[in-house]
């Protein structure tokens, strides 16, 4: 916030008011010289009005503040308070609010005793660190006949957490882990459904004896039979976000010289939202979820469970940005044994395909989520369309290569719930039971 200070000098006179005063004075002179009081009286009102306005020119500077009350908002609509702080006798101010490189919204607003707080509603579909608004103010004296120096622009930034849209069923890894969780594993244990009926052996609990089966199979009670259940287990899931690309629906912004439209979600926004939604789905059913970044060499978020892990994942996703670390990865990120890997990428280059193939070779199940947004191409000229076509062909080849490897492919722009359900039903190759339902909680 900029704080006003009184430097003792009155505000500058506006050019237009000087011209009006000069014109009025000229008419008064003309009227007097020509002996025409009616001519003089026409110039009197503008002259007197301007002189009156000049006699009340405010002194001091103008300050402006921008406050965004919610610390970690989600995509949608936010409210920012723009406060103008001017000398008491300033009746109006020009308030200019803009966002990014878009043209400013300029409004001439009235001040009450030099103060005014204006609510600015900001709609955003973007996630992560971003500028919400930048505001400037220029206060005007009475009648608009004087003006202050423009207040220094102020900016309000925030980190928007990705939303967590509800998903239905989500795919599971080929191997479940642990002795607790929400999924039935293939091992014998407790908590799951009926696995089989087995002759009693050392270690079986007495309450597991199935007396009806025992009576049918061994009427002489030479052998007891117990009902065995499936053990419960949890899944380990690693979400890997390819943060190297952050491309919008307009291919002309991919070069970086033009910024994407602030009202259009970019690929990284889709990746953040998709990863947060999947994290919520898995954590909601008791699984362990970790997070890694394909574009940055840093310590990954290790798999964990619970509500706080979801908060950690969302915060880590929110601060994920492209171009933080330009060092290339020598190897694919390491993932826990048996974990399901969900890779979020635009697949505009070969690296995510190579990494996915590597994970596939060492036995992980991979779900590739395509987060390239729907493209707008109508405004492209012939050469730009051709360039986009070449890029698209190469991308389609990569997606076909993923399909050839047996990797499940989910497009986040076309009904991801259906695609995820299909991926769940397909399951891992040769393992039909490794599916579960992400209960709507």
């Amino acid at each position, binding site marked *: 916030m900029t704080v006003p200070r009184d430097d003792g000098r009155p505000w500058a006179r506006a050019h237009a008011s*000087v011209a009006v005063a000069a*014109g009025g004075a000229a008419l008064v002179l*003309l009227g007097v010289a020509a002996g025409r009081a009616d001519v003089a009286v026409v110039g009197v009102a503008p002259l007197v009005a*301007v002189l009156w306005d000049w006699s009340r020119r405010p002194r001091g500077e103008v300050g402006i503040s921008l406050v965004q009350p919610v610390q970690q908002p989600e995509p949608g609509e936010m409210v920012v308070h723009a406060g103008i702080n001017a000398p008491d006798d300033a009746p109006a101010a020009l308030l200019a609010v803009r966002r990014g490189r878009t043209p400013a919204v300029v409004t*001439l607003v009235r001040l009450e005793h030099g103060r005014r707080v204006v609510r600015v509603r900001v709609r955003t579909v973007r996630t992560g660190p971003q500028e919400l608004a930048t505001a400037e103010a220029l206060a005007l004296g009475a009648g*608009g006949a004087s003006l202050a120096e423009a207040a220094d622009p102020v900016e309000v930034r925030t980190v928007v957490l990705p939303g967590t849209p509800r998903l239905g069923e989500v795919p599971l890894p080929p191997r479940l882990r642990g002795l607790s969780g929400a999924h039935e594993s293939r091992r014998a244990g407790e908590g799951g459904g009926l696995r089989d009926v087995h002759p009693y052996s050392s270690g079986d609990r007495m309450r597991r004896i199935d007396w009806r089966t025992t009576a049918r199979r061994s009427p002489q009670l030479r052998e007891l039979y117990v009902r065995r259940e499936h053990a419960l287990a949890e899944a380990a899931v690693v979400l890997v976000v390819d943060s190297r690309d952050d491309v919008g629906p307009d291919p002309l912004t991919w070069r970086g010289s033009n910024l994407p439209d602030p009202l259009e979600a970019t690929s990284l926004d889709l990746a953040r939202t998709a990863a947060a939604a999947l994290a919520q789905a898995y954590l909601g059913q008791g699984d362990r979820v970790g997070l890694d970044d394909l574009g940055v060499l840093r310590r990954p978020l290790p798999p964990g469970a619970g509500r706080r892990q979801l908060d950690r994942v969302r915060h880590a996703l929110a601060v994920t940005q492209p171009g933080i670390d330009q060092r290339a990865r020598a190897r694919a990120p390491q993932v826990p044994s048996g974990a399901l890997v969900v890779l979020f990428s635009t697949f505009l280059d070969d690296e995510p395909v190579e990494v996915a193939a590597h994970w596939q070779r060492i036995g992980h199940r991979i779900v590739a989520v395509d987060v390239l947004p729907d493209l707008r191409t109508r405004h492209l000229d012939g050469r730009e369309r051709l360039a986009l076509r070449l890029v698209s062909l190469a991308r389609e080849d990569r997606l076909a290569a993923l399909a050839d490897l047996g990797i499940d492919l989910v497009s986040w722009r076309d009904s991801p719930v259906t695609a995820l359900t299909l991926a769940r039903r397909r399951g891992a190759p040769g393992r039909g039971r490794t599916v579960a339902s992400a209960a709507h909680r």
Partner: protein
Amino acid sequence: MSAAEPSPTSGRGPGARAGLDVEVGRTVPAWTVRAVVALVGSAALVLPWPGGVLPAPVVVLAVALALVVGLRPRSGAAGVLVVAVGLRLAVQGPAPLWALCTLVLLVHGTVWLATWAGRVPFAARVELAVLRSGLRRLLVVQVPAQAVAVLVVTLAQPSVGASDVARIVGLVAAAAVTVLVLPRAGADEED
């Protein structure tokens, strides 16, 4: 929507493109204020009265000047408009009372609106409360000005100009006031 209810000022303009809604009181687009400036300025320049009808070419020039004031209110063209109205009055003879009162009102209204419009970009919006509060000040000046106009037409007109001494004294007084109150060139003016 009531007058006190805040209204968003983005519409389909730049705010919609940026996803911004600035909630203020009732507003009007700045271009309407400029249009009103041009209309009122035209009316002040071409107002007809018995013996005071402008020929067509002059009307075109007058409307062109008013349009310049509306389109470029910051340029100081409003001062030229004031002088033009006074010159026409001086040339076309004394106007009747109603015409003089109307001219006083129209000229003042034009320059008042032009001063505000000169500070506001074409695509901006103007909160009506700003104009309402300024309107009170305009009336405070306008009422005495109208009274002076009535006084001039009804009482002083036949005798004005009878005394050269009074004319010279008035001229010196007006010049002195002008020199004293008008700003020095470049002093305390906007850049």
